């Protein structure tokens, strides 16, 4: 009582079950990636910023392409070897395929990691500074005397839990706290649980006494024995505080009052993108507190150089150009996107070098032996910042979604192939034909993964 056509093909359709199944599955996958590519087109057509070209690590992408093509070949060779009953060769090729998949994922990890550590800051005038945050980015908020907790009356999305969401951001040692009843406690999970139960009991009592329809929220004040200073990343707060805010709220709803000591962002700048800045020469980046006039000069030099080069390349001999400089994405990038490779601007002319050095920005960078100038950005000048993650813009969003989903397919495919290699020893001995079918079907999926990458690589890395 076995299901028919698991090994041999049904005569009138010419297919065995698994093959019909895998092609149907691939058809579904086509629609999945079809939807994603369609989103890509939609986002790209509608993008209101210059779409990044050659911004990812092309070398890594290129290597990964070769790795995937290689694995596609070896999975076929594994199938052919199995058909010819060359078991050793089959195992070897299968192993190479799985190792290729592993290499692909390792490369991907490097690529992702670099993105997570790289930041982009949009200033209020549209200038974009890219770089690294040597110390991360935390707000420093001090002079805090009391924690205002809110114990929710019912199961709620925001409910006081200071031990997990507030105390980790206290700078220095956590002092003792005094409750409203005057009791001195060390705030930890146990003491807070007790506190919370007491507060809730009071709320229930009140609801009963006043015949309320539901148990109200109960606020609890904890006074610190010594003033607290917090150092907290903005993402750990419930809402982004305005510059100079006197109150911040943590993710568990606990709010504290105090003074913003420091909300400046220290950025090691490795790029200045002025494509969206209306007046490039008056960009905030050239502010003396930031990059200063020496870098501005370097920028002007680069821009003029790019223009001269463009005119030389596409000049029509009559003073005009054969191509519209405003429409050439590459030219715009060469003109207005400056990469910074040193702590101080390099200069092209002797005269320029002298001046640049004289006016070099105050070198915080030198202390860290950095290769980039370091600036301290005022909160009020920063419109938006993010590391190179989906949050940054729709390009990185679709990049991570597409490559992430593709990476998951690589992992899944590799696991299936590894399963055939490791766990199907008995089938290999007793029914190699059936295993060959399995390898063929697994291979079809693997080729599909390769096929998707063939489109992903140029669309995301190159074009």
């Amino acid at each position: 009582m076995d299901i028919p056509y698991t090994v041999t093909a049904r005569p009138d359709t010419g297919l065995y079950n698994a093959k019909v199944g895998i092609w149907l599955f691939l058809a579904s996958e086509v629609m999945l990636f079809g939807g994603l590519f369609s989103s890509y087109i939609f986002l790209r057509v509608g993008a209101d910023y210059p779409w990044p070209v050659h911004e990812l690590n092309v070398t890594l992408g290129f290597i990964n392409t070769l790795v995937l093509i290689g694995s596609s070949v070896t999975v076929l060779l594994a199938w052919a070897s199995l058909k010819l009953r060359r078991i050793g060769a089959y195992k070897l090729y299968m192993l190479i395929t799985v190792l290729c998949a592993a290499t692909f994922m390792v490369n991907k990890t490097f690529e992702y990691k670099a993105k997570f550590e790289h930041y982009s800051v949009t200033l209020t005038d549209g200038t974009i500074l890219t770089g690294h945050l040597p110390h991360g980015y935390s707000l420093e908020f001090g002079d805090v005397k009391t924690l205002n907790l809110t114990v929710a009356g019912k199961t709620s999305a925001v409910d006081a839990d200071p031990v997990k969401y507030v105390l980790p951001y206290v700078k220095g040692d956590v002092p003792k706290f005094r409750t409203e009843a005057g009791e001195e406690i060390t705030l930890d999970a146990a003491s807070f649980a007790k506190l919370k139960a007491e507060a809730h009991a009071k709320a229930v009592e009140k609801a009963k006494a006043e015949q309320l329809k539901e148990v109200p929220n109960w606020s609890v004040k904890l006074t610190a024995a010594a003033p607290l200073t917090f150092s907290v990343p903005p993402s750990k707060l419930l809402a982004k505080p305005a510059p100079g805010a006197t109150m911040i709220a943590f993710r568990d709803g606990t709010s504290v009052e105090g003074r913003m000591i420091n909300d400046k962002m220290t950025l090691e700048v490795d790029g200045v993108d002025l494509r969206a800045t209306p007046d490039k020469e008056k960009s905030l980046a050239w502010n003396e507190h930031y990059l200063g006039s020496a870098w501005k000069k370097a920028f002007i030099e680069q821009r003029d150089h790019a223009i001269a080069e463009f005119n030389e390349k596409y000049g029509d001999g009559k003073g005009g150009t054969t191509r519209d400089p405003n429409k050439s994405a590459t030219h715009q990038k060469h003109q207005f996107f400056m990469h910074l490779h040193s702590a101080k601007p390099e200069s092209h002319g002797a005269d320029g070098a002298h001046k640049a050095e004289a006016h070099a920005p105050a070198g915080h960078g030198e202390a860290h032996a950095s290769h980039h100038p370091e600036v301290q950005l005022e909160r009020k000048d920063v419109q938006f910042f993010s590391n190179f993650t989906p949050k940054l813009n729709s390009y990185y969003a679709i990049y991570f979604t597409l490559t992430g989903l593709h990476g998951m397919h690589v992992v899944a495919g590799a696991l299936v192939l590894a399963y055939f290699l490791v766990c199907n020893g008995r089938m290999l001995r007793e029914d190699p034909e059936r295993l060959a079918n399995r390898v063929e079907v697994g291979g079809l999926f693997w080729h599909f993964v390769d096929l998707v990458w063939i489109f992903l690589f140029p669309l995301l890395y190159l074009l």
Partner: protein
Amino acid sequence: MADSPQEIQKAVRKILWIGAILIVFTVITVALSYVELPSHSWNLIVGMIVATFKAALVALVFMHLNHEAKLIYKILAFTTVFALAIFLLIYFTSLDPLEFARF
């Protein structure tokens, strides 16, 4: 489907050749992307033509769509139509916003 040992050996040679061609075309894709054609759309079109060619090789030879049962072609034909529908119709609607100036 190739089943006799000779046919399989022939297929192996073909596979290696196609693998080599794919690698060559990957190099071509990368190189072409650095050439500035009259506009970036040209780069896109050329790049996509090369990618489609590579994808076709993979689909036809590696996934042996060059000789597959009729039924598979039927399924894939419908899938292609619907995939094109989701590509093109979404794209067209984005090109055709409602313009109140025309009322």
